[in-house]
């Protein structure tokens, strides 16, 4: 199993890149797509309907923890629910993490989820995680076990700053990935951007060109087109690293 995580500053195009990566990987094997952004948009980008999230069932378990029959243990309940909410599609399954934690204690439920997720991901050739914006997925180590971390930058200085911060935090927390990449998204052919991406210290994987078809799909809130210039660029990037 090869796991990718896509992260970066908000608005740089993490979800679009994640969806394009899923579309590409489906041609190579069976994919598990995980939408780890609480503001979940990956299902829509992939053209998939999902009803419930891990956040929903986690809350449900905490709500009914005293109501389950004593011998109906919580590990079994949670495993069953996780499988139930997994959206099954041609070539890929999709799991939406959903709402963040509330004030209660999540030690037990997250411990159970870790084991379930480890078991689940082992069933796929590829896992693609669309991370939430910012750095929390690294500090909370939810992206542990990921081989390739891809940070998306859109050419803005702030998006490069975020990439640098992700690299720094990764080193501090020893949350090592095999590769820490930076990808330029919606690149408007400013050659200087490539140099700026390289200056971040992350390995520069390449650029995804600005694509009006993608922009249109995002604007309309419809699934990304099956074939696109951007998709072709993602194909090239993956050819390099797989």
């Amino acid at each position: 199993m090869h796991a990718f995580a896509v992260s970066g500053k908000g608005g740089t195009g993490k979800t679009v890149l994640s969806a394009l990566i899923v579309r590409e990987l489906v041609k190579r094997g069976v994919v598990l797509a995980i939408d780890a952004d609480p503001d979940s948009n990956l299902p829509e980008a992939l053209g998939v309907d999902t009803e419930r999230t891990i956040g929903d069932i986690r809350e449900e378990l905490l709500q009914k923890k005293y109501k389950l029959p004593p011998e109906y243990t919580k590990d079994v309940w949670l495993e069953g629910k996780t499988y139930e909410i997994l959206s099954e599609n041609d070539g890929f399954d999709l799991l939406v993490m959903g709402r963040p934690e509330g004030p209660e204690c999540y030690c037990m439920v997250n411990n159970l989820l870790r084991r379930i997720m480890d078991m689940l991901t082992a069933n796929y050739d590829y896992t693609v995680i669309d991370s939430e914006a910012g750095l929390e997925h690294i500090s909370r180590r939810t992206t542990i076990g990921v081989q390739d971390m891809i940070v998306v930058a859109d050419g803005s200085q702030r998006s490069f700053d975020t990439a640098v911060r992700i690299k720094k935090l990764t080193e501090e927390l020893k949350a090592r990935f095999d590769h820490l990449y930076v990808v330029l998204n919606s690149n408007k052919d400013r050659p200087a951007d490539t140099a700026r991406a390289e200056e971040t210290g992350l390995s520069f994987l390449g650029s995804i060109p600005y694509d009006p078809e993608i922009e249109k799909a995002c604007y309309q809130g419809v699934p990304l087109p099956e074939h696109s210039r951007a998709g072709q660029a993602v194909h090239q990037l993956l050819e390099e690293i797989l």
Partner: protein
Amino acid sequence: MAEEFPVEIGVVYEGERIRKQNMQVELGGTKVDYKAELVQCRPMDEIEDGKVIVKGKDLKDMEEGGRYPLVILVEVAGEQVERDLEAVIERRIHDFSNYIEGFMHVNQRYDIWCRVSKSSFRKGFNSFTFLGQALGKLFKAELPIIEKIQITILTEEEDVKPFVENARGIYEARDARARELSDDDVDEFYGCVLCQSFAPTHVCAITPDRISLCGAINWFDGRAAARVDPKGPNFKIEKGEFIDKEKFEYTGINKVVQEKSLGENQRFWLHTMFGFPHTSCGCFEAIAFYIPEVEGIGICHRNYRGETVIGVPFSTLATQTGGGKQLDGFLGIAIEYMRSPKFFITDGGWNRIVWIPKFIKEQVKDAIPEELYDKIATEEITTDVDELKQFLDEQDHPVKERWEAAVLEAEELEVVPVGEAFAGTRLILKNARIHADKVIIRRR
């Protein structure tokens, strides 16, 4: 053992998920109304060892991609096989059936959800007889107390439906027995150190009468987790010797407390908040706090907003109580613990509870002795200790009996001040005689 079987059987297949695209058939699951699995103990002469009965459509007769009802009935016999073990044996159906290549089993009881993969079907896994035989062999190999095993698979709704309806009654009777389970009925307890990442000396002792402080792990959850991963954060505690029957002290728990608290704590008294109480992590659902003015115990839950009867909010109490310290008179608990027959039994149980927020009072109403219900104050009655004392006096709360006897006889008294301003401070008063009409502490 796999040679006579069409597909492989082994632990490596555990966790194997059959995706819809690779699914030959689906059995049970949310889209099928009736499905169940059940283990029943039988007398030795009532079952035939190794027999597998398949009634209804067999796998090879099922439509590709179809969904069907399913019953897996496992009947076992053996000199040491008792009814109490039925649930434990039943749980293993999940493990063992998942050992079969191309068979997925999720959930339990009336919720089971299974799939058979196309690839295993093609290899020859086309009859439930094989499922029954594999289960029979695995059960006998892994649980030697089973001397005879007979397995029945039903797949027609007309058979499955009445079976499930009858099984529900069996599960309910089993649940009722499980709810009655007490510390005295078991040989082992369970420990939990999930919270050690922020309370490094804390360990939860989980017993049938004492749920974890977060309320999330009961004795059955502990047992399940310890079996899946014995070296993980939930582990078995041998009960050891029951050395103090009033304080509920067990040598087995003490040993684990010493080890897991890294020597910080030596012993736990299970059902008290004084002396050597259980420690508190940070995840507790509620905090019990001793109110010296009335010799009683107050309880406040995490979502309670406002001040408690001792003038501080939950957050302040939590700062004081949490972190894995052993504190006389402050203890994190699960709300469900208030339903335990051993709830603070050493300290007088419900007779000692004087103040709880209305929310908890409603929630655990059925557990509060009827004659006490109106005698316990809530925030609607008062959030002031003097008023509380007056209320308890008027209501003739049983805690009053302690007031006359309340002569301080302690040779050494430890006073731990509440509040962030005092965090980390510990006052020790030796041979103290204190009389104060009022102590006023002001915020700087």
